[in-house]
């Protein structure tokens, strides 16, 4: 057994996993307020990346300005989605809202394809690709940066949910009717959670855009992000972070063992197995809230 190689697989797996978490945090934010997994989060992430590129390449702004500006634009887009589309569905069955998010994803993919075409563009963040060595272990710098961003967002949101606004959002997630009854604006709260998730989409879009290029494939991050969110419990930010690390490590180490046996492609199988087994064995995930049994 080569321990150095195994640790390298595990550490890089954990870092990649935190990048899945970065994506999944956006899903959790919307789930917390609307009780619906946002199937358009992949589309939003891709749009986030394209907006950064549009501001940086087409308008010519420096990246340090283009990224926050894109965050502002996406914040507005998130609010707009609630205003234009979701508000009409308030009180309808959750499955209708789910279908709406699917429609939104298709719409976002179609729009980006029409505007920016199908060729991949590069983000060029300027993060060095020189190897970084931790002892004998090779670590990718961009993954390290992305994992750092994920952890910063994690801490920020943990703190946010203790503020008065954050508590109101959690109250909305618990009970719309009771929220209305004490004057909480449920509509504005849901809009705000979409706006925050859209900002997270910019962060995820920039990091993943740097890693795999900016094209339609960015929207497919939804599959791994959703797996992480479900494993973490869908409404838990901490769950999304821990589940991301778990999925990343299991995927990276597992694929190294399994690939020689099945001849490649085992990553997808591992992700599928994690998603299916979670739903079957532990549907509320690692940290999801149980619905409280009334005595």
């Amino acid at each position, binding site marked *: 057994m080569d321990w150095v190689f195994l640790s390298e697989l595990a550490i890089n797996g954990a870092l990649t996993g935190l990048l899945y978490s970065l994506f999944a945090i956006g899903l959790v934010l919307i789930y917390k307020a609307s009780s619906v997994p946002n199937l358009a989060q992949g589309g939003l992430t891709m749009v986030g990346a394209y907006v950064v590129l549009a501001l940086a390449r087409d308008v010519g702004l420096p990246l340090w300005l283009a990224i926050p500006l894109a965050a502002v634009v996406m914040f507005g887009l998130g609010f707009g989605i609630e205003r234009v589309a979701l508000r009409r569905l308030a009180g309808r069955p959750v499955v209708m809202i789910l279908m709406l998010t699917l429609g939104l994803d298709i719409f976002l993919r179609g729009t980006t394809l029409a505007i920016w075409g199908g060729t991949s563009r590069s983000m060029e963040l300027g993060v060095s690709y020189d190897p970084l060595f931790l002892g004998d272990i090779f670590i990718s710098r961009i993954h390290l940066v992305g994992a750092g961003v994920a952890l910063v967002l994690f801490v920020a949101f943990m703190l946010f949910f203790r503020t008065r606004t954050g*508590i109101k959002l*959690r109250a909305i997630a*618990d009970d719309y*009717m009771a*929220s209305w009854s*004490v004057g909480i604006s449920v509509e504005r709260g849901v809009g705000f959670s979409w706006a925050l998730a859209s900002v997270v989409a910019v962060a995820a879009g920039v990091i993943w855009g740097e890693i795999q290029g900016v094209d339609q494939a960015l929207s497919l991050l939804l599959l791994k992000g959703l797996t992480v969110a479900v494993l973490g419990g869908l409404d838990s930010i901490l769950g999304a972070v821990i589940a991301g690390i778990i999925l990343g490590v299991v995927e990276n180490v597992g694929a190294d063992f399994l690939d020689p046996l099945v001849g490649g492609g085992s990553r997808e199988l591992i992700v599928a197995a994690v998603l299916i087994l979670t739903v079957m064995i532990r549907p509320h995930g690692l940290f999801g809230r149980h619905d409280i049994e009334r005595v």
Partner: protein
Amino acid sequence: MQEKKVEAQNILSMNSVEVLYDNVMLAIKGVSVQVPTGGMIALLGSNGAGKSTTLKAISGLLKAERGRISRGEITFQGADITEALAQKRVEMGICHVIEGRRVFEHLTPDENLTAAAPHGMSRSTLNAEKDKIYGYFPRLAERKNSQAGYLSGGEQQMLAIGRALVTQPKLLMLDEPSLGLAPFLVEEIFGILQKINKDEGLSVLLVEQNALAALEIVSQGYLIENGRVVMHGTAEALKSNSDIQEFYLGGGETDFHNVKHYSRRKRWLS
């Protein structure tokens, strides 16, 4: 002149209000209810009579259930609120403790109170409000950092009332707060309502099926049956009314009485 005086006396006035759900289901059919400023009023009636619908019409929560006021008007402190948004009504001072307690289960009691804080309430005012509420309900203070979903039924009802008080209402409406609670708890909670009413001049509109307990603390009551007000009088008058005694205060229990109950009910309905 006469009108003006009545308005000043009544914090809430609901005139011939009709409510439609889903544009077809007529749930209340011309209900008129007045709540005097600083008064305590009860709304009595059996299941499906239209009590909750009446409260939702006043608080604006009908919209969330696809209901709407199709006729009549509601004024609060002289202002027409028939079409106002629920949020606006809370800001004006109407708070509705909805049926079934409905605390925010995954929040702590303390967070439940914070969640209800009006926009722009300062931290010190909020803390003062909380202290006052914990003063009224010491059991809540003891458990303020546990999860609200695991509180007992009585504690959850106290929390639901406390949460409404944080909005600093002038009119507090409660929908069957006694439901499923032991008699001593009902007495405790009603006693506190009475105290808040006296100390702070808070007007109260109380919906109850437990007429016996309700008539002990209110000055007047309305009896609603099948979407209409069928009786209105002082608590004393209602308590001594023979129909009310039999059907709502736990009068006779025999088959014979049930037959009579049925025929009298029909009389109210016609």
